[in-house]
């Protein structure tokens, strides 16, 4: 265990959020158990009012999780000096690989909690609470995710042993290492670039045609494509985008782009990617809910907005991440 201020802040914050989420899920379960829309009893009114408490807790929890993901990366980056051979956040994460799970879970919590909030917003636009059961069942799932996140984060920090010799980005993402990380950077750059631009064009085309037609399969396609695009993009950032940003042929670290001497380019890159993918996922996700009469029109109206937002954000992401590739001084000749 390392008593580092950042670690302290993360652990304390996550514990608080987890406790709040447990309380929210408990109230959610009670709402499911006692819900009777046709009743005008006092009890129903109290349950209805509890929905406000729960959605307000989730909103705060989502805000917390987004900021804590950043803080997690910063902290992991800050402690890299404590590990022999670690030169950035990647090295610290490799010092105790459980850290990667914590990071993945934070990303999962970001998506599920945002989905939940969208679901909640839709539900609140209808007069008959159509989604009360799925909503509060999903809440338990989110709490579990947050609990797991807390668990992995704790075991990561508790298990950190500053004397362990770790590999850094240089060796982790060097072509000889095994495992996914190594595979990603050993992908040759030309096919990866081709795949990246191909997927983005396909995605945008599918999203545009969704705006025109109302076919259900198009919505599912867009959602699937946006998820695929997410993974392709992360792989591309590690494989070639980072190289052009760092202007170094071997530096594949996906976290250093948050730093000041790369002009904080990581923020627009990741924010536009995450939000773009999120909005791209929504149409397919909410397609089955169009069966519910009281939601149909709301979803149809919102869907247009999501698609447009998604297209714009993904376009923005592709443009800023291609900028150094196209206009940078760095060329990959010989690599």
């Amino acid at each position: 265990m390392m008593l580092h201020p950042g670690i302290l802040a993360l652990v304390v914050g996550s514990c608080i959020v987890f406790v709040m989420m447990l309380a929210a899920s408990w109230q959610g379960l009670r709402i499911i158990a006692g819900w009777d829309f046709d009743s005008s009893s006092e009890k129903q009114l109290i349950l209805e009012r509890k929905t406000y408490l729960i959605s307000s807790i989730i909103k705060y929890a989502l805000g917390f999780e987004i900021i804590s993901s950043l803080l997690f990366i910063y902290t992991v980056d800050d402690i890299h000096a404590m590990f022999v051979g670690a030169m950035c956040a990647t090295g610290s994460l490799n010092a105790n690989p459980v850290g990667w799970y914590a990071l993945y879970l934070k990303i999962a919590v970001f998506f599920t909690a945002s989905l939940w909030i969208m679901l909640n917003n839709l539900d609140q636009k209808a007069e008959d609470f159509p989604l009360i059961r799925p909503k509060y069942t999903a809440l338990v799932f989110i709490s579990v995710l947050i609990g797991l996140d807390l668990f992995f984060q704790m075991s990561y920090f508790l298990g950190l042993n500053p004397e362990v010799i770790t590999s850094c980005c240089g060796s982790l993402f060097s072509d000889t290492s095994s495992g996914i990380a190594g595979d990603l950077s050993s992908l040759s750059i030309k096919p990866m670039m081709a795949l990246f631009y191909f997927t983005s064009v396909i995605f945008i085309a599918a999203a545009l045609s969704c705006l025109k037609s109302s076919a259900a399969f198009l919505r599912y396609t867009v959602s699937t494509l946006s998820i695929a695009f997410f993974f392709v993009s992360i792989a591309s950032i590690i494989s070639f985008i980072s190289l052009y940003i760092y202007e170094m042929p071997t530096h594949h670290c996906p976290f250093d782009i948050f730093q000041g001497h790369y002009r904080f380019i990581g923020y627009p890159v990741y924010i536009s990617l995450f939000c773009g993918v999120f909005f791209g996922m929504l149409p397919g996700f909410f397609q089955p809910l169009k069966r519910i009469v009281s939601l149909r029109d709301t979803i149809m109206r919102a869907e247009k907005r999501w698609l447009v937002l998604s297209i714009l954000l993904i376009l923005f992401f592709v443009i800023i991440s291609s900028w150094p590739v196209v206009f940078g001084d760095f060329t990959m000749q010989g690599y």
Partner: protein
Amino acid sequence: MDSLIRTENVTKIYNPRKPDEIKALDDASLSIGKGEVVVLKGPSGSGKTTLLSLLGCMGRPTSGRIMVDGKDVAKLPERFLTLIRRKTFGFIFQQFNLIRNVSVLENVLLPLYPVETSFPDMQSRAEKILSDLNINNKMHMKVNRLSGGEQQRVAIARALINEPDIIIADEPTAHLDSKLSSDLLRILETLNSSGKTIVIATHDPFVYDHHFVKRIVEMKDGHIREIKLT
């Protein structure tokens, strides 16, 4: 006449199945048309305030239907009741219920804070209403510095700022002397002649004997009895 608000067999029980259970309204049916002035008359505890709060979408009945503008609001979630209340009703309370230590203008503007309107627009509306009610000279004064009559007019201005169709007044003359009461009734009469529906709950004879009151509903122990005036 088209009914603007209609209650059908509305019952409201407070603290059901508890020792302190109160049946505040019992099978009350009432229909109020557009442009009407209705007075709910009855002793305290007869259910006037309960009926007013149900008509004004502040709560939900235990059973029965309440139709506002053709829409059943009895089962609506609270936030939709709020939306309807915001658009349709203006309230004048027994105690003026102004927020102390806040200026007249801000008090009047409060109902518009959660609505998407621009501030200059809100302000010009408020100024107009305040000058109609003749207290625009005290606009920036704190409300607790005003006299009772002035506070009452601020409360009326606040009830009118969202341009409601229906004005609900609960014992509006309870804290006013006879001069101020007749001022108030004159204002209400003007409002009625401009097309607003007015519902007043009172046990003040001065109100229900007033000439512009055309319809009196008498209440007793949660029951409704209608008195038609000629």
